[in-house]
């Protein structure tokens, strides 16, 4: 069968909503796009453990500590589901980790912002996880089977993350003046970076959108961002707080919130590695990996010794 025919069969399957599985024929660009997207998503989960891990030891109560610990453990788990999904495309796990640590592979820029106060744990759960969830709910229906299955599992676990974040802020919003101020400050700092998580405006893309045609993505950046703004603009009222955007206003004719312009220069700067914590995040990752090397080696040696012993007994 010619490549052209295979491509047609492939697109027919996509159009009929039949999932693509690892051993099925797929265009090379489909494999590459999925591999890049899934591995970046995995890296985002793993690096995403760092801003919150920063607060585990300083959480204000045992309850909050246990919750935060469980959440960070979930992020680790989510990274592993996604690495497994990426590996089905024929790329080794160790190479993915190496590419993250060398700076070749990317992760979501949001994790290059610092978590300065306890209220940031709330804002991250509510805004950052909230933005991620919109994207991930859409990805539950993505065309590549292993990615979609990982997303279903992740979405099931993720909603606790957002709720606990909102609850942290809710408690602060009902607290002392200082706690209220801390709550508002965290929202102010995390709002714009959260909007940037959805990526550049649709109008800035000149390429015809192959990811949509292949149903890797099913909604555009602007669609998801608007959905997010509409959702958060209402939820913030419950907190009695405000979003740091003077242009945010309900538009009756569009039935959506209008909002101000994102600072795209900041966005690209952080993507390119010049965000407040890019260097620190990668250093923390490398250090953890290097410090764990002896554990990985010891486990391999122990497994080899046990296997050899079994062989001797059998002989």
């Amino acid at each position: 069968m010619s490549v052209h025919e295979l491509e047609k069969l492939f697109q027919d399957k996509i159009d009929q909503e039949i999932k693509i599985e690892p051993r099925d024929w797929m265009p090379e660009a489909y494999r590459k796009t999925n591999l890049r997207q899934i591995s970046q998503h995995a890296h985002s989960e793993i690096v995403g453990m760092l801003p919150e891990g920063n607060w585990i030891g300083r959480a204000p109560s045992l309850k909050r500590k246990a919750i935060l610990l469980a959440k960070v453990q979930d992020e680790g788990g989510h990274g592993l589901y996604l690495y497994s999904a990426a590996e089905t495309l024929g790329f080794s796990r160790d190479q993915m980790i190496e590419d993250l640590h060398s700076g070749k592979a990317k992760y979501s820029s949001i994790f290059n912002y610092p978590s300065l106060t306890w209220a940031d744990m709330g804002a991250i759960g509510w805004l950052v996880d909230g933005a991620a969830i919109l994207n991930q709910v859409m990805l539950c229906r993505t065309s590549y089977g292993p990615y979609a299955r990982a997303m279903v599992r992740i979405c099931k676990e993720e909603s606790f993350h957002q709720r606990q974040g909102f609850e942290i802020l809710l408690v602060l919003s009902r607290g002392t003046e200082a706690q209220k101020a801390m709550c508002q400050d965290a929202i102010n700092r995390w709002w714009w970076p959260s909007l940037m998580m959805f990526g550049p405006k649709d109008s800035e893309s000149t390429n015809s959108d192959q990811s949509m045609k292949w149903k890797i993505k099913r909604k555009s950046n602007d669609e998801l961002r608007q959905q997010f703004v509409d959702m958060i603009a209402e939820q913030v009222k419950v907190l009695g707080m405000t979003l740091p955007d003077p242009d945010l206003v309900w538009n009756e004719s569009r039935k959506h919130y209008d909002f101000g312009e994102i600072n795209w220069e900041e966005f690209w700067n952080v993507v390119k590695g010049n965000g407040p914590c890019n260097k620190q995040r990668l250093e923390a990752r490398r250090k953890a990996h290097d410090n764990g090397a002896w554990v990985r080696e010891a486990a391999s040696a122990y497994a080899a010794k046990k296997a050899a012993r079994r062989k001797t007994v059998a002989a």
Partner: protein
Amino acid sequence: MQIQVKKFYYGDIPDSGSGSAPSAKQVNPSEEWPLWEVFIRSKQGLDHKHAGSLHAADAEMAIENARDVYTRRQEGISIWVVESKYIHASKPEESGMLYDPAEDKIYRHPTFYDLPDAVKHM
């Protein structure tokens, strides 16, 4: 500032123009811990079902890791792990030959048989 704008999705940042380091060290995949497939029985009386995969040095560690990765919310009461290299699978290109023959045998399903309503318990 002149910036190259490309479609970029959350979790999909293009390598070009994003300040990526051009090349990285090549890793030898044979030094990796082996890959294991994980099967989980969610409750007594149900089959073990494929949950995903993970890396571990040996079977014992694979089970412990599977516990941490796949059963953090009581999703399982029993875990099987099998090293992935021992799984044999049918080929997608042979699916016609393997599965099409069952397509025209609708008489294998109970709904094929039209019986009077008077017949009970069948």
